């Protein structure tokens, strides 16, 4: 034992995180909920509103979209951690440190946030074009669109902090004791 410890870098976290996103039923639910929230957000952000009252109203709608997305994301991530108790315990048995587990879950959240945000922007943009006659392609609020992606990623990561913390703190012997 030479004071060296175990490794698990960003690339490794992306590789394993992508496998989990592809292989588990939760990920599509996460991505769908982020997509919907970001679509809603993008749609509202793209709306042209003149009066002060309508601007305030828009701010309210945006906040609702953000909160709904964050709460559903946190719930699904927590479930995903509970369902993976044993696997997280196994990772720790194989040499994963607490921060490796944390990194893995945050990277999963990041990927889902990016995918969900991307789909959301597209949906929001399309529905704006369809329904909002006052918007034309030339007058697109690109700042609003890119802020959607930033926001979806941020929501995804922030709402995963607590689930990831819970996962990180799991004690492998408690977890592996649940023998069938």
């Amino acid at each position, binding site marked *: *034992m030479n*004071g*060296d*410890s*175990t*490794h*698990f870098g960003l*690339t*490794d976290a992306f*590789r*394993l995180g992508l*496998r*989990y996103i*592809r*292989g*588990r039923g939760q990920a599509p639910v996460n991505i769908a909920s982020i997509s919907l929230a970001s679509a809603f957000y993008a749609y509202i952000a793209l709306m042209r509103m003149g009066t002060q009252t309508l601007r305030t109203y828009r701010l309210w709608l945006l906040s609702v979209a953000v909160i709904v997305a964050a709460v559903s994301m946190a719930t699904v991530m927590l479930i995903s951690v509970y369902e993976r108790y*044993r*696997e997280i*315990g*196994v*990772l*720790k*048995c*194989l*040499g*994963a*440190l*607490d921060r*490796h587990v944390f990194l893995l879950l945050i990277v999963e959240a990041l990927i889902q946030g990016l995918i969900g945000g991307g789909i959301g922007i597209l949906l929001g943009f399309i529905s704006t074009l369809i329904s909002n006659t006052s918007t034309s392609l030339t007058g697109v609020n690109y700042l609003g669109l890119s802020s959607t992606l930033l926001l979806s990623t941020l929501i995804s990561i922030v709402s995963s902090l607590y689930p990831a913390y819970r996962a990180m703190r799991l004690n*492998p*012997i408690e977890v*592996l*004791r649940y*023998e*069938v």
Partner: protein
Amino acid sequence: MKSEPLIEVVDLARYYEMAGTIIKALDGVNLEFYRGEYVSIVGPSGSGKTTLFNLIGGLDRPTRGKVYVDGVDLAELDAYELAWLRCRKIGYIFQNFNLIGVLTALENVALPTVFAGLPWEEGLKKAEELLRLVGLGDRLGHLPSELSAGQQQRVAIARAMVNDPDIILADEPTGNLDHETGRRIIGLLQRLNREREVTIIAATHDVEMIKGSDRVVWLRDGRVEKIEVK
């Protein structure tokens, strides 16, 4: 037998408190394990086998006593060094295989090499070699759910071997297998023990599974009842 033990367990005790009563999972165990040995630990469930494994693997801290691995007192290691120990020195095999469900057999075996700092491609190459060794060369791309119980346990054995550990801790490796499959898994472990000179400590409550062991340690109520040298 060589003089320097690979693992030395001295007066090891682990008590748990459960609903106000003290449960003595291990209560003063002294054991030595030597390089290249195959040792079976036999005892009924609740006799302390898993607790002993958790303490040897540094997953748990003892209430009293010491565990030395390669002469190093585990109590003196921090979380980082213990993770390194679990990754490089010790391989685990569990009763219910505990493979990662979203990874293929090949990826499951390669996973510990990531923690050991090996590049992924190299890890995969090593994993493939080991899967061939345990007879699963044609199942590399299968998910655990697509494999039989016996095959899953062979993947788990390959995973336990992939970082060339000195020690393999097998906790009831045949507990979820039918008798014939269980015997083949034990046969495989014993072959790896001979060919690769890895020390294997296998817990079981099935006395059928102790044939071919160098020594058999009988545990009861957290104490060593007897040690048989074969």
